[in-house]
């Protein structure tokens, strides 16, 4: 079993490396957001050009000539690129940490709270990298990476448990399906939650008329409308997965405990989380609930999700108390 011990050790080392890389990434993202004033202007120009291009595309053949590409930026340290590079490297180390943990224990590496939280942080960073790639949502970087750092810190300081076996009930292929779905959904909900918080702050700033002032941290953020839409879109991705996670949990519970739904505290709070996210999705579609109210709903839902993770395991006793 020396091999397993080595792997477990390697996993711990990789987790440490991940945390270090993420911390530097947070700093780099923050520097990029706080001091990239010149680039903010360049971004604005680029955005305007892009808009022109889109309009031209819809206009007709005569004006459809593509606009000149934005001037390449070469001067100074590109903190943004640095930050993204660090995030990707950290993500790789993170993946390695999870894989080696799984190999060391010869099971799916999310059988206790330490492993579960590590995996959620991984899912959140993955979700961020996806929105970074698809929506150019670099502004989320500092926040999501910070959340990931905090998650890794909590996991390693308070929740750490040595690599080992799990109770018989967790020895099922369902752990690969049910828990993975919960992890992916939680990671995505985290990104959506960050976007909702930023939306509330940005909307307040816009309402105060401060958005006219160029430069500074907030001018790097998208408009409140874009943040709102981003939060909604990511939630729309996560909600069906969360739904599936709950349902697959019920199927597993029926196999393991002989009842699909028994109002165990974890089940109750998963249900509450699901209900509030459902309310959020409905509220977004209803006049009078859009914007601020909907964002607050999304954050209440996220709070329920977090409580389901921490509160339920440490305050109540139930069938999901594995830690």
């Amino acid at each position: 079993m020396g091999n397993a011990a080595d792997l477990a050790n390697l996993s711990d080392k990789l987790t440490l490396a991940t945390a270090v890389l993420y911390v530097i990434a947070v700093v780099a993202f923050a520097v990029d957001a706080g001091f990239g004033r010149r680039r903010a202007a360049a971004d604005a120009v680029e955005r305007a050009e892009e808009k022109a291009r889109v309009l031209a595309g819809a206009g007709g053949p005569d004006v459809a000539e593509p606009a000149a590409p934005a001037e390449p930026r070469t001067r100074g340290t590109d903190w943004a690129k640095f930050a993204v590079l660090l995030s990707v490297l950290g993500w790789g180390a993170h993946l390695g940490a999870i894989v080696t943990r799984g190999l060391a224990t010869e099971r799916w590496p999310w059988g206790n709270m330490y492993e579960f939280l590590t995996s959620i942080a991984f899912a959140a960073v993955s979700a961020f990298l996806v929105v970074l790639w698809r929506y150019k949502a670099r502004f989320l970087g500092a926040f999501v990476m910070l959340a990931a750092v905090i998650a890794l810190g909590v996991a390693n300081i308070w929740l750490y448990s040595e690599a080992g076996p799990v109770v018989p009930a967790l020895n099922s292929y369902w752990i690969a399906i049910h828990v993975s779905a919960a992890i992916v959904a939680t990671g995505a909900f985290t990104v959506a939650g960050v976007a909702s918080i930023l939306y509330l702050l940005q909307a307040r700033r816009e309402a105060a008329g401060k958005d006219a002032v160029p430069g500074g941290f907030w001018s790097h953020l998208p408009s409140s409308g874009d943040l709102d839409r981003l939060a909604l879109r990511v939630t729309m991705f996560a909600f069906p997965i969360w739904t599936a996670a709950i349902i697959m949990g019920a199927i597993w519970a029926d196999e393991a405990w002989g009842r699909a739904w028994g109002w165990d505290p974890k089940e109750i709070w998963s249900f509450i989380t699901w209900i509030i996210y459902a309310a959020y999705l409905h509220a977004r579609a209803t006049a009078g609930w859009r914007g601020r109210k909907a964002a607050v709903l999304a954050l209440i839902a996220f709070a329920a999700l977090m409580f389901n993770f921490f509160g339920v395991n440490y305050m109540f006793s139930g069938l999901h108390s594995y830690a």
Partner: protein
Amino acid sequence: MTDTDTEPGTAAPPERQAKAETPRPRGFGPLGWLRWAWRQLTTMRTALILLFLVALGTVPGSILPQRGQAPERVEQYYEDHASLAPWLDKLSLFDVFAAPWFAAIYILLFVSLAGCVLPRAGVHYRAMRARPPRAPRNLARLPQTATYETDADPEAVLAQARTVLRRRRFRTDADGAAVSAEKGYLGETGNLVFHLALLGLLFALGVGNVFGYRGDVLLTEGKTFANAINNYDQFAPGRWFDTGELAPFTITLDEFTARYEAKGAQRGQALDYLARLRFKESPDDPGGRYDLKVNHPLQVGSSKVYLLGNGYAPRFTVRDGKGEVAFQDTVPFLPMEQRGMTSEGVIKAPDARPEQLAFYGILWPSAAASQDGKQIQSAFPAPIRPMVSITAFKGDVGLDNGAPQSVYKLDNIGRGLDVVKDGRKLLEPGETLKLPGGAGSITFDGLAEYTTLSVNHDPGRVPALIAAILAVAGIVASFMVRRRRVWVRARAGKGGRTVVEVGGLTLGHPTPEFDDIVAALRGEKDAGDPSSDTGKKE
């Protein structure tokens, strides 16, 4: 319709959005009031409030102990909070999920849901069969528009438009000088299926509850369980379950094995449980064998059998004052802790003469001295060095008057059952405690294991599963597919050329599909691959 903020699947139907305009009933009769109340109930705002109430209503179920889950903890709560508990109980807070107020909330919610979704399903069904809506007068005011001129005559342009749109699986309709096209009904279909599936899921769970049953059995190695109500330790039939329907199966436990982690930080943690069973579906069934494990229930007839827990059942022989065997059997002990499986139990020998005998025992599967050396504890859950501490009682066990007694407790201590002086001893397997004064003896013969099984029959299982799968499929479809409309209008322009106007309207934000369609209409080569375009791109 021009609201580009609305995402597919989350768009509310008009009747759910019109709450501001709902007229207040003024001077109309009971029917009017009823209609008004119905309209209020089916508004989105009411639905949102009900959703919230459901979420809020479940919270006490996670904070307070619940009778359905842990009745013993409710009793404990009664002892700890003697004045508060009865009040909480009046509000059904120990049975939240069976409480009338909780039922009221979710029934209202589901009525509200049905009141919205069913009419909406009708509207959607008609929309799917109706012709695509006619072209708006001014296509240039739509969110997506394009205009171009061509040499082809208007009829040819419209014919080509129909071909292009049909190839992209739009439903098309000629409408004078314009072509109307629509696709993406799957989004709304998915949305409706999702909501209807939730109603179905609730219904299936209800059916399972009412027509099914569940029971718990403790089964020691070598013993057989026959499926009858009296043989269950706990039995909870559904309201309409006919107990005559219990399938006549039997289960025999041949051997139970538990594997535990032997070293490291998690020493003593259970790794695997295995119950080797023989079962017969009916008395004349030849029977079969099954290795029952956690996560691998046994299906017998229409019932399922689950491995829930385990424990030890030491075997004892009790001889009375006359030297006769008054009791000889295994006795299940209940675990007091999981790390070392220290367990306790009682042995009752009401047949002992001249006086009845009873014993209280503590079992340590792997007896070892505690750190301070003063006490015994169990160092490991497996039976490495089993030891039982026995305390003897004599007198009246209390079974003669027919009152039911717990098999795990000596209820009559102090009421006719008295502790035997010097009747205490630590026993290893094979050892005997001889009671002073020739009152009898007890021999610890050995150790058997038992398993606790849960048996259930749930006719709602398969329908609930189908409903759940439909719900997930429905919501994915409703989020992925959005309804799209395209109109193409062609009219003669200057110099014999034809002016073509194209307008697009997508529920939610626009897709690049529109640009591909325009490109295809204009005969450009880079028209894109229609099969790759399902309208979910940004």
